[in-house]
């Protein structure tokens, strides 16, 4: 099967609407197709990755732990835009840790989240075959 570069673009906050959750479902299913997958978080999408989410008080399922499972599905490139974080008063320290084991480097544990600039995000976007937006 052809291998294509897939980018999933997340620009919306979690829980207020379902897009963040249903985007994650696509990423998980898509992993089985062995494409070259990247996931972008910009604008309010960066809020999806905050640590310490606890949805007990709103009766909605907390799906944030699922991001940590992405490494097991070989989804290891989570691009987070620095300017989006800054505008929201967030830093990398506010995000949960997501890692993967690099099979090309003796299974060393490496961070999946890559903080990049807006210009670099534009480069990532321009380097894709398929862009799916949520």
């Amino acid at each position: 099967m052809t291998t294509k570069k897939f980018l999933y673009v997340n620009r919306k906050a979690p829980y207020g609407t379902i897009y963040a959750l249903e985007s994650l479902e696509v990423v998980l299913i898509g992993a089985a197709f062995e494409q070259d997958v990247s996931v972008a978080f910009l604008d309010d999408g960066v809020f999806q990755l905050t640590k310490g989410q606890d949805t007990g008080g709103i009766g909605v399922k907390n799906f944030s732990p699922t991001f940590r499972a992405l490494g097991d599905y070989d989804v290891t490139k989570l691009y987070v835009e620095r300017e989006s974080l800054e505008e929201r008063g967030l830093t990398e320290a506010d995000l949960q840790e997501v890692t993967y084991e690099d099979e090309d480097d003796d299974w060393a544990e490496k961070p999946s989240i890559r903080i990049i600039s807006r210009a670099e995000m534009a480069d990532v976007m321009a380097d894709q075959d398929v862009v799916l937006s949520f």
Partner: protein
Amino acid sequence: MKFGVVVSEGPYTHQAADSAYLFVKAALEAGHEVPRVFFYHDGVNVATRLSVPPQDERNIQENWTALAKEHELDLVVCIAAAQRRGMLDENEAKRQGKDADNIADGFRISGLGQLIEMGIQTDRLVTFGD
């Protein structure tokens, strides 16, 4: 005090139906009355009895149906909004020549006048939407 509540967005897609549910529960617990909840726009989709959410998610329709039963709530689904979106009760299905219906127990279909009436007869009106 009497509270009227409007739900304007569909279940799961927007948090509105969840927020409204928790608000109505809290209002009842505080001793207020909630004479009616009006479902408008995509809010009418809350009333479908055909949804099958994943087992680890809440069932929004069942939550509302149970709350309505416990407190004798009047859950009104706007007929005009419902027709566009394919939400029908048995009578409406018959009247429109449709071969199925999908409204759950505890909800009833009625006109927009019920929204205005709710605004007139309650002390406060709160809308949960998009």
